[in-house]
């Protein structure tokens, strides 16, 4: 664990993230450009027609929503067990981004559901567990804002994040465990046609890199805000 502590103090984080950020940002922009070009170059699906184009923004948003929650859970564990100095800041910084990607997954999914299922929404296992993820994000952010003492707020939010992480495998396996309208897993099983797989993978990479870029900037912002607060408290 020593390496983690060495590289994750605020000073080292600012130095390392300053080096990584340009590559992540340029990578996200490049992948988005290529991914969007490929997304609008695929032929219509034999069953879903042109709505297959929604695959390239819906699935990446869902994947990042779950990755962001996983990141919050890992940071929360580090915070609770090892009192890691940056982990609370990192977890808190990821939450609004995770909520945004979750909302995008729900909205794009609803807009895909209407032409394919005949409805924007059904209370089936996948959709409901994904909506629960959005509420977990809201609860996590509300908890941080509701408790004035930052140490207590961080601890309460970390416990909520760790309790809520049980929802991630439920989302993932909901299509296997229950009968749902949502289609089953098709990437790892190889069911998806390669012509749709590549644009999807590139768009997923674009969304992940965009999330990482914004997450790092948000952590850096929080570090600067803390420094400013400390200076204010120290007085003239």
């Amino acid at each position, binding site marked *: 664990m020593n390496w983690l502590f060495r590289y994750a103090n605020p000073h080292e984080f600012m130095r390392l993230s300053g080096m990584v950020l340009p590559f992540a940002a340029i990578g996200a922009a490049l992948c988005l450009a290529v991914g969007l070009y490929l997304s609008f170059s695929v032929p219509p699906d034999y069953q879903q027609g042109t709505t297959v184009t929604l695959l390239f923004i819906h699935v990446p948003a869902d994947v990042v929503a779950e990755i962001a929650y996983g990141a919050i859970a890992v940071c929360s564990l580090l915070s609770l067990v090892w009192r890691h100095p940056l982990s609370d800041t990192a977890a808190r910084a990821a939450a609004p981004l995770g909520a945004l990607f979750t909302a995008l997954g729900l909205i794009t999914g609803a807009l895909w559901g209407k*032409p394919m299922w005949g409805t924007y929404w059904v209370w089936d296992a996948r959709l409901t567990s994904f909506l629960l993820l959005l509420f977990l994000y809201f609860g996590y952010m509300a908890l941080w804002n509701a408790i004035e003492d930052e140490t207590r707020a961080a601890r309460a939010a970390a416990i909520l994040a760790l309790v809520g992480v049980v929802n991630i495998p439920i989302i993932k396996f909901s299509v296997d465990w229950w009968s749902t309208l949502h289609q089953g897993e098709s990437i790892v099983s190889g069911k998806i046609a390669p012509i749709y797989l590549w644009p999807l993978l590139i768009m997923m990479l674009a969304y992940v890199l965009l999330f990482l870029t914004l997450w790092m900037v948000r952590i850096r912002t929080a570090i600067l805000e803390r420094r400013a607060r400390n200076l204010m408290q120290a007085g*003239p």
Partner: protein
Amino acid sequence: MNFDMSPYGAYIWPAYAISALALIGATAWTLAAWRRAKARLEALEKPARGKP
């Protein structure tokens, strides 16, 4: 490239528009917050640096 999304354009284009707006908005908001925090810290550090 094919931009003819008929007959489902009414669902596909709003989904892309909302995603684009949300991601561009989040990027702009994040960068604005970073610039604000940086400017504030610099303003606070200036007098401290000027001290003998």
